[in-house]
């Protein structure tokens, strides 16, 4: 990128909000995704919508690419820079603009941290359910862009179920406003839902209107240990088919249990093959009745131990232990490639077997955990990016798992997004007409292909330059 262009960018955002030292570029060359990384040309923190709009106009005329970024906890490479790009970071846009207790809505800026927002609304007896494992760090903007799920997805749904409206700057610099406080709205195409899950490829979200619900009054947290993996999967299917709807039903295998226990030391069953963490919440006696029915199903499926958390403190520490699962697995090996395969819930026992099969077939080690109640598992390959052969085997194992997932009517990603990491598999899930439609939409909204190009799919013929792949491909510093 030319110095004169950099100067123009600096002029738009102001000196204090422009960074292009080697150190800063390195520190925005990654997100939470393993292996992929690339250096941006510069990192900017725009102050208002006007500046973002100006940056878009400049990007189109020069041209250069723009990559939006929240907290950088994404697991599909959505906020990793591409060639000739600047990163627009939104973490400083962190004000909660309004909490409307009358309409049960809230306007927030995209950089608000999900967990902070939850605490604020809970102070008012309200509830914002989507709770990704990264909730203490990730931003609402990133959640909306990735349609993030979480532990409570089973009963309460995911981010898209809570987005009522948004404001977004489009790649031509115009401001799009969509949705509002109405719970029902069928005026025209549903642009609001289109924004959710767009992975920073069609515009930069600058404001979000979220739906809130009254907080549940009661909750019961159940823990169940299993000596056989397959029994835990059968228990999950059993609970779902008995028409019980826990708020969460989380699964951890033996490897994950041990890593999490190493970190937290809260007394998880190191010798069990699997454990389930289940929570029922709501109001009135139904909560404890449902919990009781679930306990019976767990016992019928050979759970070796079934117990309930004694108080809210214990329940919270169990949940935060579960949230640490992905990172805790790195205690075993330094590279943790986590996948996001999701199957119809009745197929859970089958996919678990297939994951084991993949491990044996390709000689790699998995830690497995996930939102079992949603049929969404995170088989995580424990490997070392410095060992090329093993990484290769890992990729082949994942290919096998993806193919099996798709055969079962599942999808390659339940909540982390396609980004860079899963785009090669998208066609198998979305189909050619599906991908073609996505590309056409992208081409209309972003004709210059300047906004997060090469994410989700590549526009053919490829015109976004080389995409970040691995460490070797990082260019050397000029300085």
């Amino acid at each position: 990128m030319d110095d004169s262009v950099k100067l123009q960018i600096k002029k738009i955002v102001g000196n204090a909000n422009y960074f292009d030292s080697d150190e800063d570029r390195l520190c925005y060359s990654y997100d939470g995704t393993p292996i992929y990384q690339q250096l941006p040309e510069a990192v900017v923190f725009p102050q208002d919508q006007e500046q973002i709009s100006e940056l878009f106009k400049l990007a189109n005329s020069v041209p250069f690419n723009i990559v939006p970024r929240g907290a950088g906890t994404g697991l599909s490479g959505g906020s990793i820079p591409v060639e000739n790009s600047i990163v627009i970071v939104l973490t400083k846009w962190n004000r909660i603009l309004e909490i409307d207790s009358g309409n049960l809505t809230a306007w927030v800026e995209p950089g608000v941290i999900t967990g902070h927002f939850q605490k604020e609304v809970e102070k008012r007896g309200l509830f914002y359910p989507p709770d990704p494992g990264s909730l203490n760090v990730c931003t609402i903007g990133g959640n909306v862009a990735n349609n993030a799920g979480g532990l409570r997805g089973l009963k309460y749904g995911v981010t898209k179920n809570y987005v009522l409206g948004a404001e977004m700057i489009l790649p031509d610099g115009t401001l799009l406003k969509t949705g509002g406080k109405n719970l029902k709205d069928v005026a025209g195409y549903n642009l609001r839902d289109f924004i959710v899950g767009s992975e920073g490829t069609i515009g930069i979200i600058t404001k979000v209107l979220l739906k809130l619900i009254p907080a549940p009054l009661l909750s019961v947290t159940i823990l169940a240990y299993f000596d056989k993996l397959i029994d835990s999967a059968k228990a999950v299917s059993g609970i779902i088919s008995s028409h019980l709807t826990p708020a969460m039903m989380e699964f951890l295998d033996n490897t994950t249990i041990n890593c999490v226990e190493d970190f937290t030391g809260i007394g998880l069953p190191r010798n069990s093959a699997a454990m389930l963490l289940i929570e029922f919440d709501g109001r009135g006696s139904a909560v404890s009745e449902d919990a009781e029915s679930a306990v019976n199903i767990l016992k019928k499926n050979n759970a070796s131990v079934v117990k309930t958390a004694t108080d809210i403190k214990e329940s919270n520490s169990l949940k935060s232990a579960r949230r640490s699962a992905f990172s805790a697995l790195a205690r075993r090996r330094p590279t943790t490639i986590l996948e996001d395969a999701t199957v119809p819930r009745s197929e859970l026992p089958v996919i678990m077997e297939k994951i084991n099969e993949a491990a044996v077939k390709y000689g790699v080690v998995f830690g497995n955990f996930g939102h079992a109640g949603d049929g969404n598992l995170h088989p995580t390959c424990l490997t070392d990016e410095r060992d090329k052969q093993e990484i290769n085997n890992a990729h082949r194992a994942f290919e096998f798992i993806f193919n099996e997932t798709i055969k079962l009517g599942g999808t390659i990603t339940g909540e982390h997004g396609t980004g860079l990491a899963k785009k090669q598999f998208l066609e198998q899930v979305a189909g050619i007409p599906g991908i073609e439609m996505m590309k056409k939409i992208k081409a209309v909204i972003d004709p210059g292909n300047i906004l997060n190009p090469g994410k989700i799919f590549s526009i053919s013929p490829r015109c976004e330059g080389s995409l970040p792949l691995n460490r070797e491909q990082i260019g050397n510093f000029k300085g």
Partner: protein
Amino acid sequence: MKDSKIINERLRGILPDDDVLSQCIHCGMCLAVCPTYELTKLERSSPRGRIKLIKSVARGEIEMTKTFSYEMNFCLDCQACETACPAGVKYGSMVEAARVELVSAGFISPAGRLIKRFTLGYLFKSHGRLKAASRLLYFYQKSLKRFLHASGILRFIFPKLAEIDKLSPSVSKVFSDDIIPEIDNPAGEIKYKTAFLSGCLMNVMFAEMNIDTVEVLKKIGCQVITPKGQVCCGSLHAHNGDFDTARELAKKNLDIFSKFEFDFMVSNSAGCGAFMKEYGHLFKDDPVYAEKAEKFSERVKDLTEFMVLVKKEIHFGELKENITYHDACHLAHTQKVVNQPRELFDEIPGLTHVPLEESTWCCGSAGTYNIVQYEASMQILKRKMENIRATGAEIVLTGNPGCYQQLKYGAEKFGVNVKVEHPATLFNKSLDKSKK
């Protein structure tokens, strides 16, 4: 500047190895607890960013620059990120190694150099010297300083100096080791033999806390052994990258303490306790000291840690006070002592403990951080003081002299009506009222 290649090689030599550097999976879970990231919202001021930078320097991808140096020193080394990291990344050892490298490559802030030369090289190496200097300081603080402060001359000459001056602890009128005998027996039978490090700073600046600690130990049936001739634990030197002096001091202490028989080595200063627990590691390859150090470190306990161990035998008296508790980083993050003080507060009849929001966040004291990085330290302290204000407590307790001083300063600067106390003082008051 030196050839960067050589420096990088050396950095790799000091850091445990590439495996430690590779362990961070850049998930970002640590960003939530980092006070410096909270201030700048810049990735390079976060643990994840700093690890990336250290890794890049070690692997020869970038050179050490002023920005790199700035970020390594802007870090509080509070180790909150280590506590938060599910992957078990040893951040502390990385940043400390980077700092050592920066010093040997000639990167050091003038303020840092001054403090190092004056306090670490000269004063702390000898108990006697420190005491002599402190006597002078006491005189200065009692008379000259009052004049300078009152007259406003200080502020006029150098506005920041006046503030920094207030941050340095005032010297106690008496030094604790002048009062505490080498062997101090409890009134009744001797149930435990506990060794006690009077500490360099604790001895001359915080004598009252030491005296309270010894009182508490005696009241729960301990013989307290405070050997004469002991020296600074060495932590101040080690944190500034001077491991040679740190080892020299540690050896001296190991020699002196090994002359006595004791069950536990009780510490009332989080920083000293944390470092004495490291003696075993410090000498693991030393043919003479390895075993001695290992045995010593095993017995080191923070006062609250020790008290919980013998809780059954402690009979607290009623104390109608409203307190809150600030976790010193060296207790919560380095020693993982978090529940013990709270467990003890729960035992004291009549005591109300209001939990402090973000209690495990650094107060910004962090060794000499509050002097070298005054502005940042004050922003961090302000957040801490506002949290303390919100509890409405009359007393805030903390188990480390650095935090104690910082909070006292904060209470005055930000107008928070709260008294700062060491837990030993609270325990002593309660034990005084004990019926048994």
